[in-house]
């Protein structure tokens, strides 16, 4: 399979001299197209930082990230933003949705921002898939936590991105909702051949991934392929 995302020698440090802390310590990583990758690790192990770096949200101290062969950190901010909204989808733990918009508006926002065309069939499909058809016109505060994460997932899928980044998407949910969200992520990956990178500290959730990368002190200590 093709490599869709490649990270080369990623270093992110905070602090100076003696107090220097490596959030990621010389990480090399290749992620294949259509795979479901879970990054696990304890709190403060650097897993979220790694995800943010991979997604182009945080600039690393050193190293390069290539998505579909393009170097993220060689792009300027504007190009990177455009690239991000077209080729990447995001599901975060908190502050996921725009509270002033209803469900449908939230989902199509990245497309609107990009002046893009909306594929109605596709949109209906994912809304049905995620069980949001009845909540389409609801506002965010009317939704439960699980429903909110489903909306976030729908938004991530709406622009048909190459890769979806999920940063502890279940962190704020109860066990049932968590499973639901992760299952939906898995379904989306299968159905639309999306690449999914999921950061979690929950081993159980990680177990449904094709590949589990374990991080500790900014280094990959284990990389298991379940396929």
């Amino acid at each position: 399979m093709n490599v869709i995302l490649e990270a080369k020698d990623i270093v992110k440090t905070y602090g100076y001299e003696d107090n220097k802390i490596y959030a990621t310590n010389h990480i090399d990583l290749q992620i294949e197209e259509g795979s479901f990758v879970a990054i696990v690790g304890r709190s403060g192990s650097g897993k979220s930082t790694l995800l943010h770096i991979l997604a182009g949200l945080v600039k690393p101290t050193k190293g390069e990230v290539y998505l579909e062969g393009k170097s993220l950190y060689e792009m300027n901010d504007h190009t990177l933003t455009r690239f991000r909204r077209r080729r990447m989808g995001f599901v975060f733990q908190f502050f996921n949705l725009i509270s002033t918009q209803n469900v449908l508006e939230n989902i199509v926002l990245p497309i609107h921002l990009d002046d893009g065309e909306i594929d109605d069939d596709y949109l209906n499909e994912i809304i049905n898939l995620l069980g949001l058809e009845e909540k389409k016109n609801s506002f965010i505060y009317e939704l439960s936590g699980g429903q909110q994460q489903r909306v976030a997932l729908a938004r991530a899928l709406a622009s048909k991105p190459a890769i979806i980044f999920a940063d502890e998407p279940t962190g704020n949910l109860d066990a049932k909702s968590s499973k639901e969200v992760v299952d939906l992520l898995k379904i989306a990956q299968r159905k639309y051949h999306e690449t999914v990178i999921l950061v979690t500290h929950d081993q159980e959730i990680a177990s449904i991934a094709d590949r589990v990368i374990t991080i500790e002190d900014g280094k990959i200590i284990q990389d298991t392929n379940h396929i």
Partner: protein
Amino acid sequence: MSHTINMLAKRNIQKYKKHYLIVLIVLLIVSTLIFSSFFIVDNLYQMKKNYHISTYGSWYTRIENIDEQTKKGIEIYSKDYFKDIIKYGYVDFQGKYDNYQVGHIEKNIYSLCRVKIIKGRKIQNDQEILINQKVSKKYKLYDQIEIEGKNYTIVGIIQTANKNLPDIYTNLETYQTKDYYSNMSVLSDNHYIQFNDGNNYQEIEIHYDYNPYGYDQNEIHDQVEKATNQLQQTFEFIIIILFVLFALTSTSLKKRMKEMALYRGIGMTTNQLMMMVMQENMLISFLSILIGLLIGVCVSLGYLYLQSKTYHTFIYQISFKETLFLVLVLMSCIFITILIPIYSSSKNALAGTFDSKKFNYIQVRYKKLKKQTLASLATRELWANKRMNICFYVFVLILSLYGLVYFYQGHPIQTKDQNEQSQVELIMATQKEANLFLKEFSQNDIIINHHYIDEGITMTYREIPQSVYKLCQLYYYQSNKDDLKGRFPQKSHEIVVGNHFNHVILSKEWYPNLKVEANQVTFKGKKYRVESSTSSHNDQGNYLGDDNYEIALDEVKLNEKVIIAGEEYTIVGINENEYYNDSMIYMFEDDLKRFNTSDEYYSGYHWYPIKDVIKVEKFMKKHYKARVYEMVTSDELSVSLFSTLNIPKHLLMLALAVGFILMMFLNYNHIENNYQDYLMYHIIGLSYREIKIKQVWKSIKMFLCTLIPCVFYELILLRGSIDHYFPIAQLMILVGIIFLVYLCVYNIPLLIVLKAHQNEEIRKEDN
């Protein structure tokens, strides 16, 4: 896409309605103030002018303007220009025809003189005349009338701007011959011109006092001043808004950081984000300016309506162009101010949220960790919220510096140009001192007046009570003996007076029923022309009208009686060469002794550059008992730092009050949002008392930061001054106020928040 941004912006306004409501109110208050003052200043000026013109037939007394048609300037005061005045001005010949006033007019200045032809045409030759509506009741157009033995044809009927203008006009240009102008001399200031027409000397009275043109002599100057004042006021208001707006926007955006990061995360570019937030703010700004404009119109309308009762005239005109310009200026100022916080927040939204660990890690530098005290915690907290605190600081600092300068107002060290001249006046000096003064500061233009001064002596002249201005020993009569009409007093109770002794000041205070119309006073059944009048103003500086009228009674006659302080004196001599209107009374020394006068005093004055005034004053104080008075008044002085920003006191107080309340509010908001931090301090071991002390430390540190530049500025002021003037009490009050402001701003909100949340905790425990 822009549609999406628009929609997002509108929804955000709803979401953050509390914040935007505050912004709206702040902008509303300030824009209301700006617009109402803008409209009031403009129209009140016109109202005053109209009132004056309708009451006195003139707006100020001198003319200096440009005729719209000929573009010829009219000037007065200088002898050389009189020629032109006669040519272009209006000259009253004091001629009378059938009880009508006859005047002359130059054909090019009709519009300037506000002479409007309503029937017929302009004069074309010296056989033709114009008449006004009053005369037209008796004569018709093309009638022939004879004036001073010459026949004229009426060619036009005119309407004039005020009652003081003549009724009949002949052609000035053809009527006057060139000889008229060649031998002119000025008799007194600018009232009379003597000219030689070849045979006789004649006097022409030029009515400069009653400006027929209805123009303000310095209209252009006044308009510039008015515009500058308006601009200043507007500028001051705008500065206030900008500070407030900057602080408000910064704190609000800081709170929205995570949301903004999310927008960026899902694909909004920095520009799109900026556009969205900018749209929200500009929409609110525009709305509040618009409402402010409407309220400003209402407020100014109301104010002017009330004022119209004083001025018996109501004017309300709004210049569309100026208003539009003001709105645009306001909008662009607001735009520029909020651009900075919006730009930085939009740009740093991503890094600030996702990369925020940076902050946590930097703090953990154990080796270099200092011991934390309440004071250092305070500094750290101030620094953590630096945007808001810097705004507070700048605001208080500017007001403090202004306050500092304010105490110096009226003192010579504040003068912009130290080379400006100031008067040093010697008052009540002895003869010895006066001679010293002359010797030390000998100048040609120094004048020494020898006279007795005693205020409060009243006299009755022609049954009119007056106060006596100057009594003097006959010995000091200095004028030429040829100027003396009559003789010198030979015995007690005989006096010499000046030729202006017949000038009487009628005050409305003494004569409330005084009838004044069109520059004439009816007094004791007789009409007098008002020689000069003084206007009075109320405490707010509003013009109340003229109420002191100086009139000239019939000429002073020899052997008239005057009762001075109850005793009768006879006028035996009149000094015909008296310069001043308040005439001197010369009498024998023995007579003078009856009055409660002190020793013989001298006075004199000389102009010095301001930089020397204090030196001279000190010298005088050292060597003379005499009081030395220098003429520097606060009106003539400008404050060096804020010379272009001369904020009136009430405005300063307003700014202080608004700013103070806002600072309290902003800080309350900040503490309320971060109250968990404060509770956390409590949990980890700070008592509430210590938390409060920590907050007091904040006030102290801010206070010290403000004080240091103030002290420097004070030193600069003192260094630049000749006299080391140091108003200690006032400065201490200022310092106290600064500290109190900080103390309140940092502590009162904390107390409120702590009280509210302490109760919350107790409630939880109860549950």
